[in-house]
């Protein structure tokens, strides 16, 4: 570790500060979820820092002055937070009460995550995807930011068009030290693994009793793919974090009717979209799933949905910025034909389907029904709609169920249409890429389990009456009045 305490505090504190400001600007208060809010703040802070650095880079601000992005961003976001219409509104549903056992579990889980981060920092970031894609791009951002040298440096990179948030977060650490680092450069990306744990624990606890939320969180916490995300600079954990926050916030927004949740959901989607290309597929699956869900359960009111469209400006912005960046540097997507075979994903899927589909399906089944991996939650996703169709396709869950099923199929189709050797491609990435959906699938399961627990609880009482200690029935699909 070459960073001193002050440097470490600055490197890690800057995105956290921006994130806390951004959370306030969005309209979310820490009391909405005291555990998850730290994960949300980290995610928002990293997104804000990435966008600021993107702007600084293209304004020609030299790397040694990149630190100025933080005070500028804090002031800008602070002014946004002061806008009356964006001030936090009173939560309609009370957050779960303080649970010392679950809080203790989260603290132990955090210690486990920090151990993984520290252990990962003993390994240089110079090989595999983290060395060849992510950290190389981060170095190029500082050395060849606006020249042909950027694309030239990526010539051995199989995915030169991958999104730039991860490289910007690494470049931030390098710029702060004015040196290309090979260990500490990962720090912000590694901390996205910690944020994922916090966001997941909060999402599960807000829907389930502490013991069950703890059990499900533990299954993810001990998953080797999760610890890998805490150790290395891969972007798969960032995708998992963004998609989890997007759907968690979307579902909370449906229950509570606060526009703030829609903004958080949009920020989660933007974060995922700017992290890795799979998110484009997940975003399409999400919108498709929500559309199908709306066809099955037509929404009662349209007001909030129309206003939600403004929130989409954030994910749209990062997609446009990334497309512009790739176009400027001539970076192309391998799935669209920029690969040694010269054929697109669709063409390869058609020609290779008979040969590869059985192998890919068998590999998927192995992973899904394995007892060793947290990916076993996908087995429930595949079987539960058959056993509990009314619950899986209820108003609350239909969109997410459709999204996860479509994404599961989509991920495997990419392997069918891969130009790479199938064994190599599956062996090096299948479990890691599927993990992007595991935390979201855990959220889906939590929603399903909440319904089943509610049935069991209600069955023990009068079916038509509320529990005395139950919170008020939430308003669905309607904006809450500002208070």
């Amino acid at each position: 570790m070459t960073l001193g305490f002050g440097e470490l505090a600055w490197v890690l504190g800057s995105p956290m500060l921006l994130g806390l400001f951004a959370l306030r600007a969005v309209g979310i208060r820490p009391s909405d979820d005291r555990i998850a809010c730290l994960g949300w703040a980290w995610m928002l802070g990293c997104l804000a820092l990435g966008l600021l650095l993107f702007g600084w880079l293209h304004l020609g601000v030299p790397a040694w002055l990149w630190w100025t992005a933080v005070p500028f961003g804090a002031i800008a976001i602070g002014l946004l937070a002061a806008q009356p219409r964006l001030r936090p509104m009173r939560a309609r549903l009370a957050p779960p009460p303080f649970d010392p056992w679950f809080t203790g579990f989260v603290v132990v889980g955090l210690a486990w995550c920090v151990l993984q981060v520290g252990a990962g920092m003993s390994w240089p970031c110079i090989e595999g995807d983290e060395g060849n894609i992510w950290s190389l791009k981060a170095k190029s951002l500082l050395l060849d930011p606006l020249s042909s040298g950027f694309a030239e440096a990526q010539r051995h990179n199989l995915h030169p068009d991958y999104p730039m948030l991860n490289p910007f977060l690494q470049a931030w650490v390098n710029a702060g030290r004015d040196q290309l680092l090979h260990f500490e450069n990962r720090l912000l990306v590694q901390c996205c693994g910690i944020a994922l744990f916090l966001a997941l624990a909060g999402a599960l606890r807000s829907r389930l009793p502490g013991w069950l939320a703890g059990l499900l969180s533990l299954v993810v916490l001990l998953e080797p793919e999760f610890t890998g995300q805490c150790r290395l600079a891969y972007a798969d954990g960032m995708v998992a974090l963004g998609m989890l926050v997007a759907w968690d916030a979307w579902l909370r927004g449906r229950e509570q009717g606060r526009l703030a949740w829609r903004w958080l959901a949009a920020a989660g989607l933007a974060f995922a979209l700017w992290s890795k290309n799979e998110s484009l597929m997940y975003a399409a699956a999400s919108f498709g799933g929500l559309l199908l869900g709306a066809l099955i359960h037509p929404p009662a009111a349209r007001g909030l949905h129309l206003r939600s469209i403004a929130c989409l400006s954030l994910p749209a912005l990062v997609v446009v910025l990334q497309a512009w960046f790739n176009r400027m540097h001539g970076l192309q997507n391998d799935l669209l034909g920029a690969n040694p075979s010269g054929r697109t994903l669709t063409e390869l899927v058609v020609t290779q389907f008979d040969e590869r589909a059985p192998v890919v399906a068998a590999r998927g089944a192995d992973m899904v029904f394995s007892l060793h991996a947290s990916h076993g939650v996908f087995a429930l996703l595949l079987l539960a709609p058959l056993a509990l169709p009314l619950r899986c396709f209820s108003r609350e869950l239909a969109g997410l169920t459709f999204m996860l099923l479509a994404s599961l199929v989509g991920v495997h189709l990419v392997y069918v249409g891969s130009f790479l050797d199938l064994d190599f491609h599956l062996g090096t990435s299948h479990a890691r890429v599927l993990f992007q959906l595991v935390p979201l699938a855990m959220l889906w399961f939590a929603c399903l389990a909440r319904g089943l627990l509610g049935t069991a609880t209600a069955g023990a009482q009068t079916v038509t009456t509320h529990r005395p200690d139950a919170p008020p029935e939430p308003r669905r699909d309607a904006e809450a009045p500002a208070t």
Partner: protein
Amino acid sequence: MPGTGPAERSAPGAAPALVVLAVMVAWLGLRLPFQLPAAAASVPADLVKFEAALRVAPARLVEVAAGITPAMVEILRQQADGDPVVVYGPATPEAEAWVRLMFERLKNLTYPNPREFAYALGVDGPQGLARLVTQANENRLLVLDYSQSQAELPIAAQFDEVGRGLHVRFWKLRKAARR
């Protein structure tokens, strides 16, 4: 439970719902008997790695993890300042993985100097060393020979050995064809 409306409570009864839930939770919980012992067993080694990350110099960590010493980086930068570099090994399946790995490590560790990195497997063929042994590369091309052979490079050209490192010899191309 929050968000559980009366309509959603009208489906199955309490007992079947609990049984279904118990089966699903058990399925997920079945992972823990595998995960917990593995996680517990990994803690001592991870603590050692954590301590190394805090106390050991980065150059030493790179040497231990990647087999690249500071002296090797020094030779590389001195001998290939702006010149092309090729990581070479024999064209065998065992050597290929190693050569490609060292190519990645060296390229990423030393970027941006040198910038022009390639790897070569064997002498002939599309990935062979011969494609880079050209007059244009005379007094420029630096070959990192990971064949671990004590003989000269198996190609009809004049090279000078300019250094040695962990499992590697550094050769500078002088003449593309031997006199």
